[in-house]
């Protein structure tokens, strides 16, 4: 990078503290999706699994005899699509949140330990990272879920345990830098144990870049859950995962465009918002990010 840009960046910095409008909008969308998902049991107009076969494949806006309206239409079994999309948001967000927690916990711990102990521990951990990253993640998840069989917690474990290497890489690199700082040495000399140094003194100082990874991974996890459920390997029917709703929608795409469009649109909006927020966080928090 030329000296020119370095200077202009430093000068521009104070202005960057204002939150841009686009970020405010996507943050609002994310909050709205979380709130709607949490409130699904109270705001969903129908039971998401109740079948009404006479009302199957009705377009959005169809009224029932009792005067209730199917705002998003109905699916192939006459279930209300809006209610299913609302409850589907719960599944999507729960799987993504929990699997990100699992992989953060595993990945960050391994990365910090590898950087702290160096030597053979470092070699084993970082080699494993390279190896894990040389299998395409989708494929590893598909194989593992297929072997283990479907299920909510199995899915979280599989996603969590296949996606830790990225956190390990970042935690490793960051810890290496932090570990040389005087305050860490001071804590060590004061008699703090390894766990205390890593979690109380190092972790808070590497949290920024880790948050950047976690945000990107959160978006990916949403896509993975939807993709696996789409393939019939994730959340099983009749539970209303967006992915499994869309797989039904694929079959009926010629007669009922709404089945795939509504959950698909929500999925897209959610992932788009997470990605926009992630890019912004990376520019703000990751010192190595290429800000341009």
């Amino acid at each position: 990078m030329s000296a020119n840009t370095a200077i202009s960046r430093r000068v521009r910095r104070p202005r960057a503290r204002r939150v841009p409008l686009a970020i405010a909008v996507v943050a609002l969308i994310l909050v709205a999706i979380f709130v709607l998902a949490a409130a699904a049991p109270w705001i969903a107009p129908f039971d998401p699994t109740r079948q009404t076969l006479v009302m199957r494949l009705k377009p959005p806006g169809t009224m029932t005899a009792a005067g209730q309206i199917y705002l998003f239409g109905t699916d192939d079994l006459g279930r209300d699509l809006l209610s299913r999309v609302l409850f589907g948001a719960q599944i999507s967000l729960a799987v993504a949140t929990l699997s990100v927690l699992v992989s953060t916990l595993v990945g960050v711990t391994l990365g910090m330990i590898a950087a702290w102990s160096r030597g053979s521990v470092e070699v084993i951990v970082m080699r494993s990272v390279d190896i894990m990253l040389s299998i395409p993640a989708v494929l590893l998840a598909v194989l593992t879920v297929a072997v283990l069989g479907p299920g909510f917690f199995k899915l979280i474990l599989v996603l969590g345990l296949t996606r830790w290497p990225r956190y390990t890489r970042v935690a490793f690199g960051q810890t290496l830098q932090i570990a040389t700082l005087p305050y860490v040495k001071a804590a060590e000399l004061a008699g703090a144990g390894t766990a205390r140094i890593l979690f109380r003194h190092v972790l808070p100082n590497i949290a920024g870049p880790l948050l950047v990874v976690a945000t990107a991974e959160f978006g990916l996890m949403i896509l993975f859950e939807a993709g696996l459920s789409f393939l019939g390997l994730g959340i099983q029917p009749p539970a209303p995962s967006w992915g499994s709703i869309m797989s039904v929608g694929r079959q009926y795409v010629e007669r009922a465009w709404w089945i795939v469009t509504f959950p698909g649109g929500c999925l897209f909006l959610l992932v788009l918002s997470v990605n926009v927020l992630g890019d912004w966080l990376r520019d703000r928090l990751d010192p190595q990010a290429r800000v341009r």
Partner: protein
Amino acid sequence: MLRYVAGRLLQAVIAVFGVLTIVFVVMRFSGDPTLLLVPEGASQDYIDALRTQLGFDRPVIVQYLDYLRSLAHLDFGVSVVQRIPAIDIVAARIPHTVLLAAGALFVAIGIGVPVGVAMAVWRGGLMERLLAALVLTGQSMPTFLSGIFLILVFGVMLGWLPTSGADDFKALILPSIALGALSMSTFARMARISIVDELAKDYVRAGRARGLSLPGIVWRHVLRNAAIPLITIAALEIGNLLAGAVIVETVFAWPGIGQLAIQSIQSRDFLVVQVIVLLISFAYVITSLLADVAYAVIDPRIRLAR
């Protein structure tokens, strides 16, 4: 140079071993791998016989060494469903997947790189914002969603293109776009970054000072220098495209190895699944090895860096 290649080769061999080990371990997650290999409703006698025949009653370490030995002899096992070698079943599907991945790569590079160049050249303008929105869309749109939307618009509403199967060349168009969209965003982002880097260099300013036009400089000098990082991306993307084919082939009923993987999971033919996972992972390892070597050949700074 030789030393760099040798080191990188060793790394690839370790990665291959790691992949083999992970797949071996995952196949045993369920407890008894025999149960993964028998058709639904098999009798207990048959299960016991198969367990002994496949050696799953022996110590795990013996099984592991045996597994490595047969793979070294290119023996991938026999499909328990179709009773022919699993590799033959997979091999018959490979051309379709290669064709699809090539189509997707064509879409990704053909659209992604020009978009990235345009974003870099018109940096800060309205054009960049519009293209950034396109890139972000490609990045946030899961392949099964873009696939179904493409089917809805071009197959159902407009009726221009076939939506499933692989009967003629036109059938390749929609799956390629769906599969290539994500890579297109990656190429666009990388092309933009590396061209912005290049544009800031002195030779560009020198060229401008001598009165050369900006498009001329970009075309003749900047693009060539910026192309180097894109080679690595292209290689890594080939692996991602092969893995992404699992979903896209299912959406479009495209008869490649991705669709075969899902069909084999449904029919509990796990040896076939294992072959597919190993093949795609090997392809991934090999393409990234080739990319690194190519990179070192083109750019001496890489191989000389210590």
